[in-house]
Structures are given as C-alpha cells and as structure tokens.
C-alpha cells in the first residue's frame, strides 16, 4: 500500500468535488447571490487544495491493490464530505461542524436525513449544493472518478467493487471506465427527463432540477419544509413515484433497455420481485391508512403508493405523515427500510437480490430436511447461485443486523426513545432519511445529541458502502502485513 498513490486519488476526488461545487456559485449568481462568497470560497479552496495535491502526486500511480481499494473508497467519501460541508459552515447556514458534516454525509450517501428545521430559510446556492451532493453520491463518487479518470485502469475494478452495491458486480462493457461512463449516462438521461417532466407539471426550474437530483439518486432532500406535500399536485407526485421507482431498478437493465432489449426487465427475477413487493405492500398499506371520506380515495391510494415507493427505494420523500397510520403498517415500512430496492441501483438497504437468495435458501433448507441426500441449488435468474455467494449474503445479513442492533443500543443510550433509536438507525444504515418516532416523517434530526449524530453519520457511510468496505478497515488482519 502506497500512501502517496492513495492520496493522489483522494486529491482528485477533492478536485472533482470543488469543480462540481463551482456550479452552485453560478446558481447563487442567478438568484439572490446572498451565499456567493462562502460558496466561491469553498469551491476555490477545494479546487486549490485538491488540484495542488494532485499536481504534486500525479506521478504516483501505482496499481490499486485489494487493500488500497477499501481505503481509497472509504476515505474518498469522508474527504468528499469534509470539503462538501464547507459551504454550510462558511455561510453560517449550519454553524456547527458536527451538524454540517452530518448533513453533507447524509447528502452524499443519499440518506436524506436532515438537521435543518427551516429548509426554506436557506439561500438558493446552498439549497442547490445540498441537492447536488445527493446527485453526486447517488451513483457514487468513486464511480464518477473512474468514469473520468481512466488511468485507474486495473485498480478501477477494486474500487468499483468496493463502492457499487450488489452481491456480484457485473461489467457491462470490457472496460471499467466505459461501464462507469455508461452508468453515468443512464443516470444523466433519467435526471434530464425528470427535470423536463417536472417543469411541465408546473414546477419552477430551480425546484425541478433540485428534485430531479434528489429523486434519481433516491436521496430525498427537498427544498421545501413539507417535502413533496408542499406542491399538493398529483402530477408532481406521480412523476416522482415513477422516477423513484426507476432509480430503484438495476441500472444495467436500463442500459439494456436503451439498447432496445426491453424484455430484459421481465427476465430479471429481482425486478419482478421488486414490482410485486411494491404492489403487495401498497395494498396492505392502503387498508392501514385511517379512512377519511370516499372523496379522498384517490389521495389515499396515491399517498400509500408514494410512501411505499419512497421507503423501499430508500428515497425518503414524504407526502403524508405515516406515523398517523396503524402501527402494523409502520412496522411494515420499517421492514421495507431494511430490505431496500434492487442491487446496482442508487437505492440503499440490504437489496432485494440478497433477500431473494436468503428466502430461497431458507426454503431449500426445509426441502433438504425432507430429502437429506437431495442436491438442491439456489437458483436466481436461471443460474445456480454458488455456495460462496450464499455465505457472503448470510455474512452480510448478520453484520447488518448486528450493526443495526448495536447502533440502536448506542442511540438509546444517548437519550432517544426506543422507537426513535431503532428508526433513526434503520433510516441511516439503509440511507432512507426520515425514520420513526421523534425522527419520523415530519420531524428532523436536529435534536439528536452530537455524539448520536456521529454514530448516525458512521451508519450512513457504512450502509452506503455495504458494510464490508468500511468495516474491513477495523479488522486487525487488514493492517497486518
């Protein structure tokens, strides 16, 4: 492991963050310009710091080994958040460093948990940057770097594997940088399409762009205190439901559809499971929403569907206060927070493909009890899932539940009640955003003690990078040669 070559990649990431941040300076100029100076300062500082370091170290391009991959990806996200939180601190929008770092990490990891009590009070440039962090983090900071920095070459695969969610990572083209570029292309197309549709539905350009950013990344930051409920527009809600849904699908399938193979959606077991899950849970939720009058039937269906899709894709937008719904439905939503959507999408959580493998494996074990000598493979998409992958998935689940349980205990210890503690951890590990209890749909994380915020920040990063990448850094054998 060579510290200099790791630092070189980190420098590049900081530089890229700085350049992207510069676009918010432009937004500020076009609007009130109140936050012009802090944004320009932050962007300039990132560009200068990242650029200078990159210039000095650009010659250090050793191949990225297995260990380096984990270090680069984990530190890359931390570095991005450190520089990304500068605008919040410098503009005074979020004076506390802890809060600003929490908010930025929540942005990059597309969690969408906020410590802000009055979002609409923020200047435009800052609001735009807050949405942009989610858009950058949605597909991945490293994936972006790999797409524009082809020289990562072979090592790119190590980074790719450490960042992209899923059990097995599939390359859709021979070169890792091409794959990264194609995924970003799909992502940009989805964003453009949604922006246009939201404009058509009557949103101002600023709102349309910011919400498109945070929908396709399944982030969930809104520019309004009341989230999507603010617009009271069925059209807007339906557009957002559709794009949340699309963002929760494996991007490889979108790529194949772009190439004309539309049937690849229907041939994918995970996609089918995803659709059935959403439909099934929506029906259950429908009966759990306290019925008002028959004239609100349409609203009820829409609110139910919106909330289910928002939670399962780990976006975290709200159009209704689901904490008013019956407890059984709330628990169902908590389960969905854990499961998440498809692998290879921008969604968080455990990912449905793992759920499918675990369920099938469980059923097979029962069959094996009856036929002790039978060979019963776990099949997914027509192919046998190897024993090593099943073990990997089981290990992931155990770690996920352990982290969930431990973090919940710690959060209760900081003074949160039990439901809020569990809700906050589920919502941050799964990158959803709003949890349950005092951090629920219409609340925020401002009241959580500082220590608790750091714990949740750690949960967000660990959850976004699918546990192993971050947790492996804390094992003794990682540091032993």
């Amino acid at each position: 492991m060579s510290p200099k070559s790791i630092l070189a990649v980190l420098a590049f990431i900081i530089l890229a963050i700085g350049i992207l941040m510069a676009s918010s300076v432009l937004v500020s100029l076009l609007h009130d310009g109140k936050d012009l100076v802090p944004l320009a300062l932050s962007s300039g500082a990132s560009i200068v710091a990242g650029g200078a370091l990159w210039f000095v170290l650009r010659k250090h391009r050793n191949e990225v080994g297995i260990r380096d991959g984990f270090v680069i990806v984990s530190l890359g996200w931390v570095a991005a958040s450190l520089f990304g939180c500068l605008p919040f601190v410098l503009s005074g929008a979020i004076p506390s460093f802890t809060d600003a770092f929490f908010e930025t990490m929540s942005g990059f990891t597309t969690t969408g948990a906020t410590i802000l009590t009055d979002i609409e009070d923020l200047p435009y440039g800052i609001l735009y940057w807050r949405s942009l962090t989610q858009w950058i983090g949605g597909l991945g900071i490293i994936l972006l770097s790999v797409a524009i920095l082809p020289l990562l070459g072979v090592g790119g695969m190590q980074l790719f594997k450490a960042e992209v969610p899923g059990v097995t990572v599939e390359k859709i083209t021979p070169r890792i940088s091409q794959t990264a570029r194609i995924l970003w292309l799909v992502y940009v197309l989805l964003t453009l399409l949604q922006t246009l549709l939201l404009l058509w539905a009557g949103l101002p350009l600023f709102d349309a762009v910011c919400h498109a950013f945070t929908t396709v990344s399944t982030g969930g930051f809104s520019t309004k205190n009341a989230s999507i409920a603010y617009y009271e527009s069925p059209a807007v809600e339906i557009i957002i439901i559709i794009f949340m849904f699309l963002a929760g699908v494996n991007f490889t399938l979108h790529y194949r559809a772009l190439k004309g193979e539309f049937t690849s959606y229907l041939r994918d077991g995970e996609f089918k499971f995803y659709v059935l899950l959403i439909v099934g849970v929506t029906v259950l939720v429908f009966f759990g929403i306290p019925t008002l009058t028959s004239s609100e039937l349409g609203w009820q269906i829409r609110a139910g569907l919106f909330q289910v899709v928002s939670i399962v894709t780990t976006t975290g937008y709200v159009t209704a206060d689901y904490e008013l719904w019956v407890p059984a439905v709330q628990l169902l939503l908590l389960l969905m927070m854990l499961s998440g959507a498809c692998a290879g999408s921008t969604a968080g959580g455990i990912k449905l493909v793992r759920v499918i493998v675990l369920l099938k494996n469980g059923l097979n074990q029962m069959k094996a009890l009856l036929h002790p000598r039978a060979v019963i493979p776990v099949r997914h998409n027509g192919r046998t899932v190897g024993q090593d992958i099943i073990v990997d998935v089981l290990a992931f689940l155990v770690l996920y539940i352990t982290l969930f349980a431990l973090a919940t205990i710690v959060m209760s210890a900081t003074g949160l009640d039990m439901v809020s503690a569990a809700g906050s951890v589920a919502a941050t590990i799964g990158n959803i955003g709003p949890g349950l209890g005092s951090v629920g749909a219409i609340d925020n994380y401002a009241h959580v003690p500082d220590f608790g915020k750091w714990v949740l920040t750690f949960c967000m990063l660990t959850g976004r990078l699918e546990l192993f990448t971050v947790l492996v850094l804390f094992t003794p054998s990682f540091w032993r040669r």
Partner: protein
Amino acid sequence: MRIIIVGAGEVGFHLAKILSQERHDIIVIDKNPLSAERVNDSLDVMVIEGSGSELKTLQRAEASDADMLIAVTTVDEVNFTACMLAGKLGVKKKIIRVNDPHFLADPKGPSPEDFGIDLVIYPEGLAAQEIVRLIRRSAATEVLEFADGRIQLIGIRLDQESSLINKKLKDIVSTYQNLPFRAVAIFRGIRTIIPTGDEVFKKGDQVFVISKTEMVQEMLRLAGKESQRLEKIMILGGSGIGRRVAEQLEDEISIKLLESGKEASSELADALRKTMVIQGEGKDLDLLATEGIIDMDAYIAVTKDEEDNIISCLMAKHLGVKKTIAHVEKLDYLPLANTIGIDALVNKKLSAANAILKFIRKGEIVSVATLHGVDAEVIEMIAQKGSTVTKKPLRAVDFPEGAIIGCVIHNGSVEIPVGATQIKPQDRVVVFTLPKAIRDVEKFFS
C-alpha cells in the same frame, strides 16, 4: 478492437493482459469459475463464465459486435466449435489453438481457411521452432527478428571471458563506432534495467542488444561469444516439442533423443530417420554417461515434467555441457533461468501468445512483445508531427527513464539510432520499455 478470448488459462490470461494494456476491448470466456474470477480480479476486461462452444455464451459476450475471436482452451474441439459459432455470428477474424498437430493439418482435407479460420496456433510447434532458432544461433540466449529479419534482437549472457565486463556502455559505443548496435536492456538477478550511457556491465548480466542482422556475428564476437556450430545435441523427451526439434535439426546436427516410454520410443525411431532414439530415463546418470553426455554441445530437456527438465539441465551443465535449454510450463519460472544457470527456458504458452500477438499487430514491425522472463515490452510508435521526440536530435531529448529507442525505420530503411539521430515525423520507432514507462513514452510521440 473488440476481441473475445475463449479460455482463461495461461495463454488466454497472458493475451488478455497484453491486449487490454494496448487498449483493445477484451472479453474473456471461461467455464471454470476460479479462472474467471482470477481474470476479473486482476485485469480490466469483461469476464463471462460459460462455455465458449455454446451459442448463448457467445451471444452474452455480444460476439456479433466483436472483431476477433481467439480460442485458446486446451480442448481442440471446443476451440473449433467456438470459431465456427463466431463465424456464424459475423466475427471477421478467428484464431484457433490446437494441441493435436494433425488437427486441420491434413493437406488433402479442408484447410483452416475453408472454415474461415485465419490462424492456427500449435504451441508445441512454436516452442520447437524457438529451440531450433536458439540452437542455430547458439551463442545467444534469445533471438528475435524484426523488420522482415533485417533487425535482430539478441540476448547475450556475459561470462568470464567477455571483454565487456566492468566497462561503461558509452565507452564501448565510442570504441566501436563502426559497429552500430543498441543495448536496450540488461537483465541482472531478477531486475530488468534499461541502461543509460553510464551503465557498467557486470559478470552474469544478460544483455539484450538490437543490431542489423549482418552485424550480429560481429556483435557476438565482441561480447566474447564465438558463435560455434553445434555438432552434437541430446534431447530429453520425445513428445510434441522434442520430436519437432529432432525433425527440423536432424539433417544438420547429430541428435540423440531420450524417451522413457517403450512404445513411444519405437514409434519415434520409426518416424525419425537420422536421430538416434534411446529408451531410458533422463535421471539415469549411468545411461547419460554411457551415451556420452560429456561430449554433447547442447542439452535440451522437454519432457512433460518441468521440474525434471530443470534438474536434468542442471545435471548436464554440471557435467560440462555448454548449452542447456529447458521447457517449463509455469510462466513464473521463466525469470529463474539466469539465477539457476540454465541458458534458456522456453515456454510453449508464451510462444503461442506471442505468435497471436504478432498476427494481431500484423503490418507493424514489432514481432514479439514479451521476452522470456524479462519484465519489459517492445512497442512500436509512429512519431506524430510536432511531437517532442521529433524536435531535437536524440541526445538532446529528455527521454523517459526506463525506456530506450531500439531502432528507427525511416522511409522503409532501418537505422540503429545514435546520439545524433534525428527522428522525423511519420518515422516508425521501436521502443524498448519497462511497463511503468509506457504512458510517458506515448506522450513523447504524440
């Protein structure tokens, strides 16, 4: 180019590595999950787990968009089927590796071209050719030809007798003005050095020199290597490689061929007219002594067991045989040749991969990219107009560390560069470089 490689064994892996570094788009197919994973973990290529002889695997690899398919599994029939299917899917170029020399080789039967196959690679035959070349140019450890044979790259081991030892490269160059040569690499211990003028030669160095073919004899004499004709050689192992070497050399050299199998040896005796076939074990020292190993000019060990080959070569060396050549299966063993004192290690898989690379780069003059056991590449560049390298004579160009210009082809004539050589736009330049310097070299030419 988009290239599909079927089979991720040593040949496939090596090809995928080199070709992906040359910015080709590579898709590797292998049905063994472990091999597939190894490629996926270490190379920037796409890997598909499945059989290359199945249509659906090739379709998953999007073979219809591919420019070339290289089938290099160990099963001839799988390779053949993969080529046939690729042809149906519209792949233009097909390369097949065969392990049975008779496969597609019947002069009366259909030729490979009839099946749309562009190149047939028989690794054992190629390894045999390499051994034959080494025997004919006995003083060198390695012989490669460039530019239709007008230029040779030779490897020379510096022993005690060499007058070059402890001399600086630039002093040697100034002493022998009339003998244009270019020392492009020194292999010392396990390190590959791209020498500068101040490099001092040491005893035991393996030096790679590029020179015009007619100058090579002179070059060898300078290095203290009288290129004597070999008159008697002994070959251990009569399968594929050993048999081919005997067939090609038996008219010029007296050959004794040791083969342990009883039936195999009578079959060999039947097929080879002049070679003396002896049935026995290579480890049988008495037998070797009886057959006069001490008088042999060269000893070639090419049995299936690589450890046996190495040990018996060491034994022959110990008994005083001047030149020993062993065949090894593992690529990892190649750099050992220098350390253990065997003159040359040959690997049929590397020979096969090199032959395929040569075919892919057809039209370029670089014929071989990788030397046996040396961590360096030979790449060819065309100097672009206005590029750094064309601006000044060579001695004033701050060429990247770890790279050196081997020869320059200007208007079709070959030139061994000296300090005053001025490279002009559109010249083709052969550069010898360590892998880490390739990117910097490219910048100089563009």
